[in-house]
């Protein structure tokens, strides 16, 4: 059995990578295939008769090519080659204007025909260099759709053909034609568009690299059970046949088959199925899927950190390949703009043909097309977004969904979860009032299966625990489990109130709540067995951060916790609007009613609200479910990141607007000049120079976001 990793290029989306995986898996003697879209690699485990050559052949048959790394540096080498060729071309073409030394045999004045031929021949390589752009433009034209490539192709081809016809006329003896050659324009247009695309790819891969590093640095762990004890270990140390335990709200670290427990699982990101699937003994579970309400123990069957990384890979890939609404607008504009420009140029053409001559008409037609080329538009937004996302990731903010960056300036309300978001969630048990001694033991045993901060706090109470069967989580209310023959419940006052039981602790409850403590009750169907008071601490810098945010946004606290406790904490952080004792569904409703809203939270209970919010933010240490439902994830324990987020997004939008302005500005003021109606006229050469300037301006402006 052999294993090899190949570098593959051509995978642009998850459909492609899945396609490759499936195709190779179908082949004989293939044992396993794992594709990594971000690293652009495929790891293949195979048997003897196959060789590495065969594997490379499979990759080719699937429509991809190996040796990707070579392609990237080759692209830059090619660009610089053509850049120098282009500069040389320009020198020969315009050298005489600046009285520069030009070899006599291709001198414009002495040997015009040679000069023209030289320019023509030197431009042809550029057409091959820009082959992909031209092909895309022509293809779109044939199918009657138009994008930026169409405009560029149109400009380049018309320009080239016109120059060619002038070359022919020159050959026939018309010396004046030598002034109407614009071959270098075609060359430069293609050169600069290629540059734009190279920069785009370069930025994307740099940002992805830094994200990849960040993501692999935050270790992902799994919980295994060995001899009745729980061990939390790094995912790549989980072996096949290990018993893995997954609690509510957690992500399955590896694939396997359930041994014990019952729960519903969300496999949406893997199968697209949004309805939760029931998993019980003998059910198959997949790495990356989300566990919902129950506790499951299963036997690991397929391991390897790649299965978790592919989960995160998908998140990262989505952040980049999803087109933002700004980008969609650019596409929309291109669809109007292109026919509009062609119409304008045609009008100028007809006008000049009627009142002047063919040459002026063609020159203005070509110039208009070239000068209107909105290549910088295609750069404007993506460049700014990519630089920002990379910058934010360095600061510890992971932007899963780039549309969120555009939505941030629209936010009016910020809704904050309490426990774990405003408070550290590091809760300690301070008082207990019990009816039976075992009450605290039972409570801790139940809470052992919980991922709620209260549960985590009680787990710290190192007590011998008893076995709990049929554990169930009731989001927003509490938990239940069977100890011995009795079902016990643990939860908030709200939970208790749904059972008609007599509560002997009402006075103690009132006292604790007034002090801002959190209350947990332990009870059975028959009686209340205990009251437990827990204390939480505020996060570092929270008051300062929220005070700053209050100036521009309306802040609300929304929590499933008790109202009195919530109000006490709220007053400590100067929040006046409080919604307490809300269920996850109610949190979601509140978020919708307060739109445009930013929701920040951490727990399973926040997931629906995070998803429904205009922008959903998951804090560090939050549950996997909340991270999955959010647009933005904080990778550091630092609440001031919320301020940073708003600040950076404001800057980004400003720069995107500036970019769009510059992209259009040059083009728009140039169009009247290109029309030939004004005393100052342009030629395609200067037009393409102007276009270059707009692209360079956009690029430099976007780099300002690097800080």
């Amino acid at each position, binding site marked *: 059995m052999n294993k090899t990793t190949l570098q593959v290029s051509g995978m642009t989306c998850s*459909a*492609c990578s899945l396609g490759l995986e499936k*195709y190779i898996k179908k082949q004989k003697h293939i044992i396993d295939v794992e594709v990594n879209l971000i690293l652009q690699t495929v790891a293949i485990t195979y048997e003897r008769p196959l060789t590495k050559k065969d594997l490379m052949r499979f990759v*080719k048959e*699937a429509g991809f090519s190996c040796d990707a790394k070579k392609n990237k540096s080759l692209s830059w080498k090619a660009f610089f080659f053509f850049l120098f060729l282009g500069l040389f071309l320009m020198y020969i073409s315009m050298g005489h204007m600046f009285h520069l030394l030009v070899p006599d045999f291709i001198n414009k004045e002495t040997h015009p025909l040679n000069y023209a031929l030289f320019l023509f021949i030197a431009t042809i390589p550029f057409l091959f260099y820009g082959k992909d752009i031209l092909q895309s433009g022509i293809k779109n034209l044939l199918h009657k*759709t138009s994008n930026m490539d169409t405009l560029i192709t149109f400009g380049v081809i018309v320009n080239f053909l016109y120059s060619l016809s002038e070359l022919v006329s020159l050959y026939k003896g018309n010396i004046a034609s030598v002034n109407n050659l614009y071959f270098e324009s075609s060359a430069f247009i293609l050169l600069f568009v290629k540059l734009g695309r190279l920069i785009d790819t370069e930025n994307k891969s740099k940002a992805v690299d830094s994200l990849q590093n960040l993501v692999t640095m935050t270790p992902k762990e799994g919980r295994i059970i060995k001899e009745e004890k729980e061990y939390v270990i790094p995912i790549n140390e989980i072996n096949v046949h290990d018993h893995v335990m997954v609690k509510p709200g957690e992500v399955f670290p590896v694939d396997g088959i359930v041994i014990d427990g019952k729960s519903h699982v969300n496999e949406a990101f893997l199968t697209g199925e949004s309805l939760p699937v029931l998993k019980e003994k003998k059910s198959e579970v997949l790495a990356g899927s989300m566990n919902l309400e129950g506790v499951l123990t299963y036997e690991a069957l397929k391991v390897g950190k790649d299965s978790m990384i592919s989960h995160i890979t998908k998140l990262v890939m989505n952040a980049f390949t999803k087109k933002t609404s700004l980008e969609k607008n650019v596409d929309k504009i291109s669809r109007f703009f292109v026919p509009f420009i062609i119409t304008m140029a045609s009008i100028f053409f007809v006008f000049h043909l009627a009142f002047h001559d063919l040459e002026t008409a063609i020159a203005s037609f070509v110039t208009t097309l070239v000068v209107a080329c909105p290549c910088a538009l295609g750069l404007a937004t993506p460049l700014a977004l990519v630089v920002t996302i990379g910058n934010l990731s360095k600061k510890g903010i992971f932007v899963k969904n780039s549309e969120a960056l555009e939505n941030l300036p629209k936010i009016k309300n910020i809704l904050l979860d309490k426990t774990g978001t405003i408070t550290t969630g590091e809760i300690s048990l301070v008082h207990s009032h019990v009816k039976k001694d075992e009450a605290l033991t039972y409570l801790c045993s139940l809470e052992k299966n919980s991922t709620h901060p209260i549960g985590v706090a009680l787990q710290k109470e190192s007590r011998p625990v008893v076995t709990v069967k049929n554990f169930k989580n009731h989001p927003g209310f509490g938990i239940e489990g069977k100890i011995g023959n009795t079902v016990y419940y643990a939860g908030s006052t709200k939970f208790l109130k749904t059972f008609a039981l007599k509560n002997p602790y009402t006075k103690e409850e009132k006292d604790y709540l007034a002090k801002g403590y959190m209350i947990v009750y332990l009870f059975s169907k028959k009686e209340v067995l205990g009251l437990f008071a827990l204390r939480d601490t505020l996060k570092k810098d929270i008051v300062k951060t929220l005070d700053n945010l209050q100036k521009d946004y309306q802040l609300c606290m929304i929590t499933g916790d008790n109202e009195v406790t919530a109000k006490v904490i709220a007053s400590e952080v100067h929040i006046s609007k409080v919604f307490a004792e809300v269920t996850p569904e109610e949190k979601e409703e509140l978020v919708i009613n307060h739109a445009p809203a930013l929701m920040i939270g951490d727990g399973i209970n926040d997931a629906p609200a995070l998803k429904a919010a205009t922008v959903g933010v998951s804090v560090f240490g939050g549950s996997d479910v909340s991270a999955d439902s959010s647009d933005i994830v904080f990778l550091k324990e630092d609440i001031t990141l919320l301020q940073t987020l708003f600040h950076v997004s404001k800057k980004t939008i400003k720069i995107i607007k500036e970019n769009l302005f510059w992209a259009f500005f040059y083009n728009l003021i140039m169009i009247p000049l290109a029309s030939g109606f004004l005393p100052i006229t342009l030629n395609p050469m200067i037009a393409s120079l102007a276009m270059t300037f707009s692209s360079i301006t956009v690029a430099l402006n976007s780099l300002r976001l690097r800080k």
Partner: protein
Amino acid sequence: MQVKLHVQKMVCEGCENRLINALKEIKGVEKVTANYQIEEVVVQLKNKELLEKVIKKIEDLDFLVVGEKDE
């Protein structure tokens, strides 16, 4: 001879490219174009027998060949 196929499940230009690259590998396939927006694949084949091979390859790659497109 030229055949126009109605092919579904191409989602992006990347899919188009890999389909084109893959079909080009088949001996006897002279020209291939693909467009995911109109769900179309056009192939220029040396003889009719190759069509079956082409369709099988497209399906091997996980796309769906609905049928031939009439002019």
